[in-house]
């Protein structure tokens, strides 16, 4: 940011890259890659988000302390996703089934 002016050429270039990546994510969705479909979809979405943050939102030209806030936001999100999933994904599904039996008995 500051007094760095990003020329329109860069913006148009980023826009075209985003269009190509959008087409790529739709095309990849039609190919059966099993568990990797979601990995590829998220990788392309993250690449697009990074381009938007770096260029449209000028993060690349921002001072270090602004960049630190951006990294913190992503980090906090990662904490929420990682810790919550580490609980749920390792849970005993039978225990979960028992809970629904209990709920049935209660009703």
């Amino acid at each position: 940011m500051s007094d760095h002016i990003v020329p329109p050429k860069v913006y148009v270039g980023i826009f075209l890259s985003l269009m190509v990546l959008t087409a790529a994510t739709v095309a990849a969705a039609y190919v059966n890659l099993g568990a990797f479909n979601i990995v590829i979809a998220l990788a392309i979405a993250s690449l697009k988000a990074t381009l938007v943050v770096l260029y449209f939102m000028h993060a690349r030209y921002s001072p270090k302390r602004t960049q630190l806030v951006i990294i913190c936001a992503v980090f906090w999100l990662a904490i929420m996703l990682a810790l919550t999933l580490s609980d749920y994904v390792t849970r005993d599904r039978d225990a979960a089934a028992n809970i629904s039996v209990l709920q049935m008995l209660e009703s």
Partner: protein
Amino acid sequence: MHRTGELYGQFETLEQQKESAALGMWVFLSTEVLFFGGLFMTYTLNRHYYGAAFGVGSNTLDLKLGGANTVILILSSLTMAMSVWASHVGKRKATTGFLVATLILGTAFLGVKVIEYKQKFDHHLVPGYHFQIDYRAQHPAPNDDPKEIEAEKEELSKAFAKDPDLNAHAQLYFSLYFGMTGLHALHMIVGAGMLVWLIRQSIIGRFTPTYNTPVEMIGLYWHFVDIVWIYLFPLLYLIDRHQ
């Protein structure tokens, strides 16, 4: 009353003043990341548990409309970025023009969203008493392609075999679909309101190369809303297209 481009007492330089505004905006956007993050967390867990129902739900969405909206929204981010550039170099008319273009594209996005929501109401896919995941397969409209309906019936019977509680779990998918796209649309409406204000400010010549902080800050917000959609599009529309 409007002290545009002046240096406020608490800052040393204009540059520091601008950077502080951007820093504050980014702190706000961090809270927005976690606000939407809670919904993405809920989505991830339920998709993990009820993959079959989420796949069936996702395939009922209109990929053409969703894809068109993705293009519209990214294009509106481009025009927003261009208006920031135009205000930096002091092109007042171009600034206004790009802001108007952004507003038109944002409104077009919301219009397409209305069409999509209406389809979901017509097909009984809004969670609640009348929800029925196989409504369209059971009651096809006269102009529906019979081949498509057959394919949908086959897909549904496979999914019901995997998950007998498909109707209940598909409602989870649609609750998240309406919740997430609804919250996103609400952000677009707020953004459109701010754009109207920006356009007015731009027309009366409030922005100069030394003072364009509002254009930049609302630009940051607009791009953030774009990023949310960049994730929503593959997660909601493209779960199970391959088969």
